[in-house]
């Protein structure tokens, strides 16, 4: 009688053990959802089409200023005399997404033009552009826009700025938001 009871108990525990095992196999996977993001933008580009050129001129006894507008017109102040030859505003071709807007940033500090054969120099300041600089003023109506840039050149006396070619570089930034 005792033996029979013990065998029964033993079977009972075996069933329990099997239940435990089944439970482990039946564990359901637990999941979580994550979010994926990506921002696609076109490759914007800006290329200089025409270099800024103040043209030929003579400073005269006092020197002065040459104002080059974004439209390419030149006006002079002081004793400067405009010479023969061409002058033009800088122009840049900006390309990207159709109707994309962007901002133009012009140099804020004066830019130096150096005489190619001496240490003499001139300053360019009062930069301006069309479209106007500032947030979102540029717009790529057909995926392209020409940006024209002008500035004012400060010219010294003939002693300060001897005849010759003066060159320099500047940075203009096109910012697509």
């Amino acid at each position: 009688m005792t033996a029979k009871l013990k065998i029964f108990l033993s079977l009972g525990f075996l069933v329990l053990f099997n239940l435990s095992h089944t439970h482990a196999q039946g564990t359901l996977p637990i999941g979580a959802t994550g979010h994926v993001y990506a921002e696609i933008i076109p490759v914007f580009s800006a290329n200089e089409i025409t270099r800024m050129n103040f043209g030929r001129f003579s400073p005269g006894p006092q020197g002065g200023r040459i104002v080059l507008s974004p439209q390419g017109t030149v006006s002079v102040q002081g004793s400067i005399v405009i010479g023969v030859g061409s002058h033009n505003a800088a122009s840049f071709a900006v390309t990207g997404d159709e109707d994309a807007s962007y901002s133009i940033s012009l140099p804020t500090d004066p830019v130096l033009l150096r005489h190619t054969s001496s240490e003499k120099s001139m300053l360019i300041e009062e930069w301006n552009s069309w479209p106007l600089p500032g947030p979102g003023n540029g717009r790529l109506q057909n995926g392209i826009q020409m940006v024209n840039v002008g500035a004012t050149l400060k010219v010294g006396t003939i002693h300060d700025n001897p005849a010759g070619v003066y060159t320099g570089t500047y940075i203009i930034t096109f910012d697509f938001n």
Partner: protein
Amino acid sequence: MKQIIKFLAIAVVMFAFAGTVQAQTATASSNAAAVIIAPLSITNTAGLHFGTIMRSATAGTVSIATNGDRSSLGGVTLSSLTPVHSAATFDVEGESGRTVTITLPASTTITNAASDNMVVDNFVSDPDDANPVTLTGAATVLRIGATLNVGANQPSGTYTGTFSVSVNYN
């Protein structure tokens, strides 16, 4: 003949003892079965962001590693403009010392407002989903990266989608 009968009697007694021993062993198993393990949980704590990408006329891919590093192949250019890139993170919690298996999705599709889409695949995780991961008392941080397939002239826009990650006790 008499000897044979005695032998049988002994065998019966031993069987009875054997039964007793087995019953005691089973009691021990019963205690083990009563152990309760903590439920598994997995919580998304950060999304997977491929950041800002400049497309071109050539298709390309952008990959986010599990440490959040970003790389590209083909005709795409990585931009530092916002939104910036990051790997996804999940917190996995469960019974300390237990191992779990991580299951990553094969792929998912993300779309923009104009219903253009891109496929995200080659999901990778740290800890690696190829091996069982042993849980600790604290949350195990799961970092997930993947590869974004950017088409030629992929339309601009913010693309979003979801993916599912699951864990299971071994």
